[in-house]
């Protein structure tokens, strides 16, 4: 067991105790942390962060940009754009996905549309897990 905190620029948006944390770094690999992990700093990919609590329940976040720092018994997710699964606005995410897909169909090299599509997909995926 270890302490987990999700910190956004505005506030500490989540804090609790976890058994395991699963995230994905920009290199594309999933990485899981448990108590006693080696000190670690990583850049997070546009992906979900899953917190598995001691009672087996899960809290899932969509993290669009951020860092993870593991030190001692404390894991910190620093992210300026993240949302908890229950806060995801599904209709809005769906609409964003449609728009991004349409933009991508028109110009398949549009990096902004591709990023928007990835974000919308992540939101929907995360809210489905919840």
């Amino acid at each position, binding site marked *: 067991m270890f302490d987990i905190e999700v910190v*956004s620029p*505005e*506030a500490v948006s989540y804090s609790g105790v976890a058994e395991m944390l699963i995230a994905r770094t*920009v*290199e594309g690999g999933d990485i899981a942390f448990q108590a006693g992990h080696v000190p*670690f*700093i990583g*850049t997070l990919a546009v992906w979900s962060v899953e917190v598995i609590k001691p009672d087996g329940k899960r809290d899932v976040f969509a993290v669009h940009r951020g860092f993870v*720092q593991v030190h001692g018994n404390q894991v910190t997710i*620093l992210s300026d754009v993240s949302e908890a699964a229950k806060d995801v606005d599904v209709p809005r995410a769906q609409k964003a996905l449609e728009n991004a897909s349409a933009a991508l169909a028109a110009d398949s090299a549009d990096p902004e549309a591709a990023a928007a599509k990835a974000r919308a997909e992540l939101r929907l995926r995360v809210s489905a897990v919840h």
Partner: protein
Amino acid sequence: MPGGKERELRRRIASVQSTKKITRAMELIAATRVVKAMQRADAARPYARRITSVIENLAASGAEVDHPLLREVDGVKRVGFIVMAGDRGLAGAYNTNPIRAAERQLMAHQSEGKEYCLFAVGKKAQAYYKFRNYRVDYSYMGFTDNPAYEDARRIADDVAKAFSEGEVDQVELIFTEFISMGTQRVSVRRFLPLENTRVMAEVGGGSAAAIASFEFEPSPEAVLESLLPRYVEARLYGALLDCAASEHSNRQRAMKSATDNAEELITKLSREMNAARQAAITTEIMEIVGGAEALGADVPADDLTAAFASMAPVDSHSLSKT
């Protein structure tokens, strides 16, 4: 006409009284807002602290990058100034202090032959420089009393872009630091280029955490590179929140003294009004007495007594009233 002055004073008192009501309301609003702004500033602190701690750890691991935001320029040609003031007035010297401080800096740099580039935050800053024919290159307004992270990001993007593209070689940040409810201080700081990571770590207090050997993914350099823009945003956001708290507490103080002044003015005017009323009554009595005496020359004494008797109730009435 007697009583004219009294009426005018009465009108002025009424107007001061309604002004007082407004300033009092503004004082109370500012008082609640300053508490909220302070809470927001406190809530934002963990993020800034954590980012600094990550940078500390990166510095300890020896990560050095050639990031554009760290670019030190020898011959500085153009200096950027981020001036943070408010959108609204009625906040005492809150707006003028940073604006003037920035203007002094700007002139000093100008006398050294450097050019300037203004990032004006807040309507008041923009209006001041525009009125004085400075060139305002970037202006931001509409959020100073309740800034969001998004606003900080917008400013940070422009500043970082101008700096990385060589439009400016150095950036100064001028804002009002919120120290406590009673103390706010204008602070002028170098914003860009960032101190190198080692200095940041030292300023951050180099905690014991920095000694632990960290694993980095993808690499210390890559993490640092994506971290620095966030660090710039967080610092700007912190400054904006400090400014918001300072603005509200300055407004509260300004409105409190305005309310006090209004009260004082009302007391003074009421006294004046009472004196004027008394003077008017005295004049009236004198006129009546004078008139009666003038009549007295060809009026029998009994009639005069009767005239006084009929006046007496009026006199005693107005005297008791004053």
